[in-house]
């Protein structure tokens, strides 16, 4: 080995096949159904060496150039009439170009290309986050108007114009989602146990493949399925809360299966073998050893799955319908739901439209809060109860 030209110490080594996924991979798995069985907790990073030869721009140069561009662009844009969007876009584009030109003059073509692409990647990342920030800001600022006691205690029964609330929609959301969870969790966990502990041969391969495919079924198709199923038996006018739960189950089951399977996979085999060695039968080993060990992770996965389906609109629009008064019986008639409530309040606001549109934004705010609380709860559960797995 020759002399050490790069910072060897900087190169952190992580086993790329490490079996313990971090919470990030768990979250993305449940959220985006990513195929990340092999994800490592922290990304292994290979750092480029510091440049030893030739002229190099100082570390502050990229920021300095962009800041200078921002000032110049502010002057230019102010001269033709102030426009925030034009200023930001102009600064980003011209700043990138300026950086490339300066770097090319000082450091040469290859370094300049490197800086150019790094700049473009960071800019793309900022661009991807911009909608998130804008969306959260919009929902919070517009939803705050009706975020009051009446919203959480009144239904829309007999309400025209101002006032009214979404308590019927909140009940409906909780009941429909609760029923969907009751259907999905047993089936999902048992299927994951089959895949991880029993399955072999063609049935296992087919199930693994089609569970993945099912995560991509459009939600509206799940709604049509539930409608078709029930309308064959009860006629085409049927609208029930439980139909919505069935539709949501089609969406939720694959998520539960994938996350539970992942959690069962990281239970060490030595635990199973120790249990077998004590003469414990296989099913009692699964129930008494494997499941309790993975419980924190499984619950986390279920909570994230609930967070994903609680905001579904389309399948409920066609299976549960809309109603303006409280209905808490999922087996009898139409129910309301927060997401559908937000959609309907915005789409057909009536006269005058403003109160209804305000209610739509507040419903959206409540939905986002529920989803956030569920996500934070999931992370908390995983931190608190899921660490034994490591």
């Amino acid at each position, binding site marked *: 080995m020759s002399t050490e030209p790069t910072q060897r110490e900087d190169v952190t080594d992580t086993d790329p096949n490490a079996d313990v996924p971090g919470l990030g991979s768990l979250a993305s798995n449940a959220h985006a159904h990513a195929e990340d069985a092999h994800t490592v907790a922290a990304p292994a990073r290979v750092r480029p060496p510091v440049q030893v030869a030739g002229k190099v721009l100082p570390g502050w140069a990229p920021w300095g150039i962009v800041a200078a561009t921002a000032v110049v662009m502010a002057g230019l844009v102010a001269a033709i009439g102030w426009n925030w969007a034009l200023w930001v876009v102009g600064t980003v584009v011209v700043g990138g170009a300026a950086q490339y030109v300066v770097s090319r003059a000082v450091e040469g073509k290859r370094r300049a290309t490197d800086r150019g692409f790094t700049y473009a990647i960071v800019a793309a990342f900022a661009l991807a986050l911009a909608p998130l920030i804008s969306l959260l800001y919009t929902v919070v600022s517009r939803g705050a108007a009706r975020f009051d006691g009446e919203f959480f205690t009144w239904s829309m029964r007999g309400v025209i114009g101002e006032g009214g609330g979404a308590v019927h929609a909140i009940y409906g959301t909780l009941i429909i989602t609760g029923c969907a969870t009751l259907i999905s969790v047993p089936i999902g966990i048992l299927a994951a146990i089959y895949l991880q502990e029993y399955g072999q041969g063609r049935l296992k391969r087919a199930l693994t493949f089609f569970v993945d495919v099912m995560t991509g079924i459009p939600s509206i198709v799940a709604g049509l399925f539930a409608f078709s199923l029930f309308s064959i038996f009860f006629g*085409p006018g049927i609208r029930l809360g439980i139909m919505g739960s069935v539709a949501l189950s089609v969406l939720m089951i694959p998520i539960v299966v994938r996350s539970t399977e992942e959690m069962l996979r990281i239970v060490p085999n030595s635990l199973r073998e120790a249990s077998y060695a004590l003469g414990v039968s*296989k099913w009692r080993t699964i129930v008494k050893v494997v499941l309790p060990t993975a419980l924190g992770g499984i619950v986390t996965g279920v909570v994230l799955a609930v967070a994903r389906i609680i905001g579904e609109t389309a399948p409920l629009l066609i299976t549960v319908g809309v109603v303006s008064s409280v209905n808490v019986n999922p087996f009898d008639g139409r129910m309301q739901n927060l997401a559908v409530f937000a959609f309907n309040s915005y789409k057909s606001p009536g006269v005058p439209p403003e109160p209804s549109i305000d209610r739509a934004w507040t419903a959206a705010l409540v939905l986002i809060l529920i989803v956030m609380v569920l996500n934070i709860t999931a992370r908390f559960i995983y931190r608190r109860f899921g660490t034994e797995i490591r």
Partner: protein
Amino acid sequence: MSSTNVDDLQSVVRGGPARGGAGDRVFRGLATGAGVVILATLAGVALFLIVRAWPAITASAEDLPGGENLLAYIWPLTFGTIIAATIAIVIAVPLSVAVALFISHIAPRRIAQPMSYLIDLLAAIPSVIYGLWGIAVLGPASVGLLRWLEDNLGWLPFFEGPASATGRTMLVVAAVLAVMILPIITAVTRSVFEQTPRRLQEGALALGATRWEMIRLTVLPFGKSAIISASMLGLGRALGETMAVAIVLSVSGAITFDLIGSGNPSTIAANIALDFPESSGLAVNALIASGLVLFAVTLVVNMAARTVINRQMRI
């Protein structure tokens, strides 16, 4: 050692004692049954949709909505669906790959993990809220850009105009869809980028490559099939996305490539969501038939994507 003992030992190595009591058989049956239920559900989706779509497929043309045959009813919707999803993919894929590279290779490790949580947050937001944001914020904000496109790039069929005054256009819909499918494309590509063998990356750097050259020479070739399959997964999502399109898009029946006007066809999913509550009789069957087409298309796209991913993961 008798032969039964050896059998026992081998089955323990495979993952369980050989002799199971009644409890074992019941539990195994339950687990297998749950798996079969899932497969049966997927088959049931296809079956029940076909059963309920059948009256529309066999009906005579004048009974159907629009008074023409079923194909003439579904085709504009299919066209709208494909257009919206294609543009969403064109916007989302380069952006997602850049975000994935940022998290896997550019960002300091300290902030990489929180940043990936933020991207996951994009996936957690309900689609109806994206729709509200699209019509209330992004649409109005894009009017100036749409007008600029009409004035300067109007010779392209996509930007023919006349530009919409509300921003409820196909281009804005596609942009909203792109934001919605960005997290899944990012998640899949990132997890593969991070698996790029270290020796390849270190080798490239040892030969004097800059960081971008290292990415271009090792990470991107390694992740190529992941980018393709992730794009297909995203395509599947974009094809089936309902509420954002239903809320944002201003619809007319025309088939046009004009992305900035207000005369675009709806998509299958959005059309179902908007028309279903007010439909009855054969119109419902026709909507379900269009849903069957959507189901078939997304099923094929997703199966293809999963096949590519599985092949990549096995390597």
